[in-house]
């Protein structure tokens, strides 16, 4: 059994909570006492049927307001897979929560209300999913019961969305017509939509192939912690502990340690359960080297002929998560892999309208939930890859120096000295070009 992490995004009332409730309910992820509690609440509120959506709104304030306002994680399993759902609110004012939920997801479900069709927010949800590098997209066209299970309605939505999605760098889109309320095409194929030949949503979630999503080419091992037992038995033991970010490491491999550039060979790869021959993501292991080199947290082990860029300048897409806006010359802590340095914003290239993908080059800041491209300079070198190569070595966060809060999430586009950056003239004109660049960040 393997693990699939997926995120869900939909606008208020598209039926996201109902859909998740149904997945949990039909896969027995809901228990009797939870069901009894929401039955009581549904009755008290005078609903005609049990509101499965109540299962998924956790916090009191949210229950009072009746909306989901933070990322909530849910779990269920079928005999084929374990699932982790990042349930994220869809309104534009919660873009940062959507970005958070998307950051670890293998797949995103974008919900569309069949009666309303493709809306601006559907674009936004899909854009965020691709920006955060989610390899698989599912467009669930919900409330098909309310449009008479019409093939035509579904096909129109599908055509319109597909046309628009060509702007994005997304390789795998699956469209599924569903009714979350009645269960059509959620777990089992619907008898009301014989014209639909594809899989049910759950079947797709269980079978979508994610094995090739892992990067097994670019070997990267950020050192987290050095294990030094300092006992007579393990006198000279130095284990470099960490999680494989990407690529494969094998016993005997020649390796380069960054930023020093020194080289050595892998003597052993250890886990509590003994030595292993090779390690790939997501394993957490300890690597022991042939040579006695000074290595500490924040260093990275990689292969001599495939290294990240060592640089203290970078271009990145940035999602802003704090009330106080990001501005040119702003100073922050930057955490990237196991390294934390200081950073300054050298330039805000543009702000992107998350609904239309229009770029505003005149923007002088990024406010809460806004996304844009920035240029950063850091106090010490980082070991950077582009985000499309690796989420781990291409993603970073900015931390406010005073409040210590996490204020921004960044995705590296390129690293190194300033190349000639040519701002595009008319933003809409350049939309396509724009998008390929954004897609490159995603």
């Amino acid at each position: 059994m393997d693990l699939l992490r997926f995120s869900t995004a939909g606008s208020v009332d598209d039926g996201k909570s109902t859909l998740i409730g149904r997945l949990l309910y039909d896969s027995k992820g809901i228990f009797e006492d939870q069901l009894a509690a929401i039955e009581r609440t549904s009755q008290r509120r005078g609903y005609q049927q049990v509101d499965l959506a109540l299962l998924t709104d956790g916090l009191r304030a949210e229950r009072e307001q009746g909306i989901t306002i933070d990322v909530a994680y849910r779990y269920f399993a079928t005999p084929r897979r374990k699932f982790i759902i990042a349930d994220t609110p869809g309104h534009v004012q919660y873009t940062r929560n959507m970005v958070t939920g998307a950051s670890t997801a293998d797949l995103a479900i974008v919900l569309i209300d069949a009666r309303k069709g493709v809306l601006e927010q559907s674009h936004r949800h899909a854009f965020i999913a691709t920006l955060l590098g989610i390899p698989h997209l599912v467009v669930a066209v919900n409330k098909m019961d309310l449009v008479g299970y019409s093939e035509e309605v579904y096909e129109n939505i599908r055509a319109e969305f597909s046309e628009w999605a060509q702007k994005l760098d997304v390789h795998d889109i699956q469209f599924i017509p569903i009714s979350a309320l009645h269960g059509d095409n959620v777990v089992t194929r619907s008898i009301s939509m014989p014209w639909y030949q594809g899989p049910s949503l759950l079947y797709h979630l269980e079978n979508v192939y994610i094995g090739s999503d892992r990067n097994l080419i670019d070997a990267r091992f950020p050192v987290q912690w050095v294990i030094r037992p300092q006992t007579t038995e393990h006198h000279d033991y130095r284990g470099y502990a960490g999680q494989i970010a990407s690529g494969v490491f094998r016993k005997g491999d020649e390796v380069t340690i960054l930023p020093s550039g020194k080289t050595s060979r892998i003597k052993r790869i250890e886990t509590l359960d003994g030595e292993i021959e090779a390690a790939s993501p997501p394993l957490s292991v300890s690597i022991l080297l042939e040579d006695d080199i000074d290595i500490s947290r924040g260093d990275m082990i990689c292969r001599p002929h495939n290294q990240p860029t060592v640089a203290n300048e970078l271009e990145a897409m940035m999602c802003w998560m704090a009330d106080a806006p990001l501005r040119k010359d702003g100073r922050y802590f930057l955490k990237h892999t196991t390294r934390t340095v200081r950073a300054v914003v050298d330039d805000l290239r543009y702000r992107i309208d998350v609904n239309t993908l229009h770029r505003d080059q005149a923007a002088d800041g990024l406010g809460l939930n806004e996304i844009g491209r920035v240029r950063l300079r850091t106090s010490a070198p980082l070991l950077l890859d582009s985000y499309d190569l690796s989420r781990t070595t291409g993603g970073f966060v900015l931390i406010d120096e005073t409040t210590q809060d996490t204020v921004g999430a960044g995705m590296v586009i390129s690293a190194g000295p300033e190349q000639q950056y040519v701002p595009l003239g008319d933003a809409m004109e350049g939309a396509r070009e724009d998008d390929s660049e954004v897609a490159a960040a995603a």
Partner: protein
Amino acid sequence: MLTLQSDVDRSLNRGLTHLDALEAESVFIMREVAAEFERPVLLFSGGKDSIVMLRLAEKAFRPAKFPFPVMHIDTGHNFPEVIDYRDRTVERLGERLIVASVQESIDKGRVSEEPGNPSRNRLQTTTLLDAILEHQFDAVFGGARRDEEKARAKERVFSLRDEFGQWEPKAQRPELWSLYNGKLRKGQHMRIFPISNWTEMDVWQYIERENIEVPSIYFAHQRDVFRRDGMWLSPSEFLPNGPDEEVQNMTVRYRTVGDMTCTGAVDSPAANVQDIILEVAAARITERGATRADDAFSETAMEDRKREGYF
């Protein structure tokens, strides 16, 4: 070259299960904490979740010792089997154990017991916060899981607390990728939940896979019990049965181990870990609903207690 790559992929994928992925994530979290905090501590109750945490700490730090002590918040209302298990386990691992006692907090007048409520769950908060202050702990590992309860579903892995231990659900830091922000201001500390993404089923499957010993009360045994508030409770000096509450001898087991006075037994013949896994697969009542008397009070009970600094 390409075929070679996919061979590697296949060979590496074989046998990589959801438990491997969860374990790797939890080990990563523990190492981040060891690296970024000055004085972490790992809370250990003797329950299955904290038992898994100890194994994960071994995975993260062996062959060295843990870079932090283990702490038990002792309510005084313990199952003797659990205390016995605790002492043997810490001894076997050769790690340092700190016991923070609720009884001492009561004796010192830091807290007082509510008349009529034998449960000391609420009182643990003060004992824990006093211990954090006394030892100047800045990071406290807990074995809570997000599937346990609705309020937890939104809690971060690194959960920031003020000096009263309070959790502010509205002011949580965004947590992206595996980039955990461990920065603290004066007076703050961090609660760390490395097994946030595990479910009850994952925990038992892991215990089975790793062949880890658990306290005997998790397995079916004969015990005197009486019925109160829809639960089977064990009579003791802390919780005598009332005149109308008839004591029966039954085959029961526990799904959680906590304060004896509010932890209910379940009527179950499960005699080993495999039986428990089958039972969990078929179970229709959450472990909290089944066995924790103080959660049943209100739908928001857990959220209220968390705001107060309870785990």
